[in-house]
């Protein structure tokens, strides 16, 4: 296959720039791709006349420093700015309103309420428009079926299948040797790794001697869908993703950054550098184990299916817990902190934080925890069959076993390994349930029943104790055992953890859905089907509340279903993508998710967007409100919406979350 790029610079091209007028200067250019045989013909070739390329000279990277000024120069006296050239949003974004960061909530919301323009933006990624005909009865589905097709990693040698995939991830070495690919056999990826390396190099080593950094290419696919290719050159490692799912450059950049960080987590930065310094032709797959590949697959599947809310929302979910109980747990953690214990984490199923033990001024980074939780909860590494006689493939976290895992936490320190002691403690323990007067009826209700409706989420509390020393296993294990004993024997702590993770206790002896998540019905917020509230000022992480679906018992059972969660998160991801692309990307730098919240341009502005989709005869409305202190993502399902009422509900949710933040979020954790 051959590729050549004809570059012709077009002044003022049709290149779609959502960033503020004064932001990073980018050189618009057009790329023609001439392909033979093996170029992703479906992807690239057809797109040649219309594809746009987003790249910039390396020399221009400093100009991003000027970006915050753009935000600050907005006049504080103006309440609402809409459609003005100087505002953060272009006129074309109907339904998006630039709003004053420090205004009271009511003032934030009023512009939308009074806006009489048709403000629903029906434009949506192709995936939405493709699936417009839904059978009538589907409108009673708990959530409108948006037609999300789940897709998972494979190693198929079928090129047709390879090109039909809606999302790809590639990791390769600077020499063009493959390291990981989400799809495709060795033969297929050996070729495309070479192609990707060449495309990146074409810009890096320009024929005129100049150096440019290729960031992204948008191509038009065979069905008219847009395919975005995003490149990340972190020599000696190169990464590329291509996606038809409508993510923004910022989002795709964060996804590649996350994959790269997992590579660091598995091998550490100096190790990777060292092997490539010694030999550029090194095949890095030689030192990646099966568990590493499985974790790459799991991460890519989650990204392709919108199945890890934390990666989209850029934060961590916490278990809702009475603050007095969380304080007690912090007390227990501090009491059993040992000399070489660096970090302690208590985590509920699905990677929801219960509490954190940490040194003063040394918060763990969101990305590091997301990596750790992806390894633990998304792969089979820490799982085993629940019973020896269990013959299906559903696995749960392994109990009665202790794990000691070397892991590099790259955002904490990419240069070295830490050692994590991991133990899973099942809260559904008959002895303890009887001791603390909890309904034991649930013990006769096997997990299999829950499993029918989606992946079994589990009833285990995970204890993770991290040390910097690899010979401290026994010290960590002793500390863990003491912590677990105290958690189990303290009646109020055990009962609250049980209710939050396993199930609430009905007065009639029944067990209800666990209380660790809120439901829109807990808040007087009519019309809201589901929401995510992200707090940006609590403690050290971006923490968020992921609500239950509003609905009957059957619907609630479905909420862990990947299809269901994927559809919710697809909508939130789309809202987030519109928001991030309205800001533009800081030049050449992939912003670290959530850790830069206080300084990033994103957080300095307030933003409101409402998008409505028609799916069959049903309507679905998504809302994103972003302020410096919080983000609220929300979904309304079905029918004609009273916008005033919906916005009132937004207001109520934000106020409610603020009032209850002590039980919804971890403020500082147990600090020593």
């Amino acid at each position, binding site marked *: 296959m051959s590729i*050549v790029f004809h570059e012709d610079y077009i002044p003022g091209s049709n290149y779609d720039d959502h960033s503020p007028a004064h932001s990073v200067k980018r050189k618009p250019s057009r790329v023609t791709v001439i392909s033979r045989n093996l170029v992703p013909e479906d992807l690239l070739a057809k797109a040649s006349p219309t594809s746009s390329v987003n790249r910039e000279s390396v020399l221009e990277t400093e100009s991003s420093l000027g970006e915050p000024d753009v935000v600050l120069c907005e006049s504080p006296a103006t309440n609402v700015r809409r459609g003005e050239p100087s505002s953060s949003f272009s006129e074309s974004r109907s339904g998006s309103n630039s709003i004053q960061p420090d205004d009271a909530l009511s003032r934030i919301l009023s512009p939308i309420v009074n806006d009489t323009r048709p403000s629903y933006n029906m434009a949506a990624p192709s995936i939405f428009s493709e699936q417009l005909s839904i059978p009538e009865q589907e409108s009673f589905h708990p959530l409108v079926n948006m037609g999300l097709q789940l897709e998972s990693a494979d190693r198929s040698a079928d090129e047709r299948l390879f090109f039909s995939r809606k999302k790809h991830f590639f990791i390769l070495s600077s020499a063009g040797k*493959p390291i990981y690919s989400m799809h495709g056999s060795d033969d297929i990826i050996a070729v495309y790794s070479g192609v990707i390396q060449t495309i990146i190099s074409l810009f890096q080593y*320009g024929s005129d001697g100049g150096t440019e950094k290729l960031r992204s290419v948008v191509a038009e696919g065979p069905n008219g869908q847009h395919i975005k290719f995003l490149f990340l050159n972190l020599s000696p490692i190169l990464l590329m993703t291509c996606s038809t799912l409508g993510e923004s450059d910022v989002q795709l950049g964060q996804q590649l950054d996350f994959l790269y960080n997992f590579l660091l987590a598995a091998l550490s930065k100096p190790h990777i550098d060292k092997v490539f310094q010694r030999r550029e*032709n090194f095949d890095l797959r030689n030192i990646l184990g099966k568990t590493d590949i499985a974790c790459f697959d799991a991460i890519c599947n989650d990204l392709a299916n919108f199945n890890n809310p934390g990666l989209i929302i850029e934060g961590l979910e916490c278990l809702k817990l009475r603050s007095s109980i969380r304080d007690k747990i912090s007390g227990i953690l501090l009491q059993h902190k040992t000399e070489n214990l*660096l970090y302690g984490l208590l985590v509920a199923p699905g990677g929801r934080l219960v509490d954190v033990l940490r*040194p003063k001024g040394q918060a763990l980074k969101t990305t590091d925890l997301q990596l750790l939780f992806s390894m633990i909860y998304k792969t089979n590494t820490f799982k085993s069959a629940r019973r020896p006689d269990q013959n299906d493939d559903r696995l749960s976290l392994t109990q009665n076993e202790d794990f000691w895992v070397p892991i590099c936490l790259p955002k904490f320190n990419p240069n070295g390994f830490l050692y994590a002691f991991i133990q899973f403690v099942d809260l559904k323990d008959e002895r303890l349930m009887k001791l603390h007067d909890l309904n034991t009826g649930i013990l006769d209700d096997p997990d299999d029943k829950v499993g029918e409706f989606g992946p079994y989420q589990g009833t285990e509390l995970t204890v993770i104790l991290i040390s910097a020393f690899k010979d401290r296993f026994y010290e960590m294990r002793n500390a863990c055992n003491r912590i677990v004993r105290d958690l189990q024997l303290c009646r109020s702590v055990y009962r609250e953890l049980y209710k939050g993770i396993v199930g609430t206790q009905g007065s009639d002896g029944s067990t209800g859905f666990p209380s660790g998540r809120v439901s829109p019905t807990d808040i007087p917020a009519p019309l809201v089907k589901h929401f995510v509230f992200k707090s940006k000022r609590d403690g050290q992480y971006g923490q968020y509340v992921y609500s239950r679906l509003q609905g009957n018992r059957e619907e609630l059972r479905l909420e862990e279903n990947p299809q269901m969660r994927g559809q919710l998160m697809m909508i939130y991801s789309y809202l987030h993508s519109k928001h991030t692309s309205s800001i533009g990307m800081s030049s050449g730098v992939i912003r670290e998710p959530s850790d830069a919240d206080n300084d990033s341009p994103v957080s300095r502005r307030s933003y409101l967007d409402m998008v409505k989709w028609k799916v069959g005869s049903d309507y679905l409305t998504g809302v994103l409100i972003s302020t410096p202190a919080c983000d609220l993502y929300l979904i309304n399902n079905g029918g004609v919406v009273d916008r005033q009422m919906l916005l009132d509900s937004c207001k109520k949710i934000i106020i409610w979350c603020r009032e209850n933040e002590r039980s919804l979020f971890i403020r500082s954790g147990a600090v020593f």
Partner: protein
Amino acid sequence: MSNRRKTILKVIILGDSGVGKTSLMQQFINGKFSQQYKATIGADFLPKDMTIDDKQVTMQIWDTAGQERFQSLGVAFYRGSDCCVLVFDVTNTKSFENLQSWRDEFLIQANIKDPDNFPFVVIGNKIDVEENKRMVSAKKAQALCASLGNLPYFETSAKEAVNVEQAFDVVARCALQQEESLEYSDDYTDAVNIHVDGDNSTCGC
């Protein structure tokens, strides 16, 4: 742990424009030859699965453009190669004379640390032509290969499929040997010390 996965070998093919690099590739991989000359733009990538002494390998062959205007890509193409194939046309003296500069260029651009031991394979192509059109004798070619460090030399015809398989079999063996030459030493478990930035008292490390 990696025994079942095929080793990827990066092989790069260099030589003047029109010596038959792409034809050799096509003959080797697809068993086909086309009379029509079509210049390669940039590079072609072709995969070829082979078995070398029971070892499964995938050759990732980088068929580069001989034309000068693509030479700025050299650095990008050459680095991390496991073997370099130098091709000349036995009917074209200039293409033979340029071999050494292709080799030197490769060694510099690819930043080869041990140039004396890097595997090159030299191929004199187009031996199907009439004897009177032949400008470079086998003896002359062998002498050059000997002077460059006993490089393996093959005379081939991409057109008539003479010696192509044999040449690439040696290429694959050389590449595999190079790939395995520096065995990976598993020293990363104790190589790194963790530094808790700015923390020297509380965590006890």
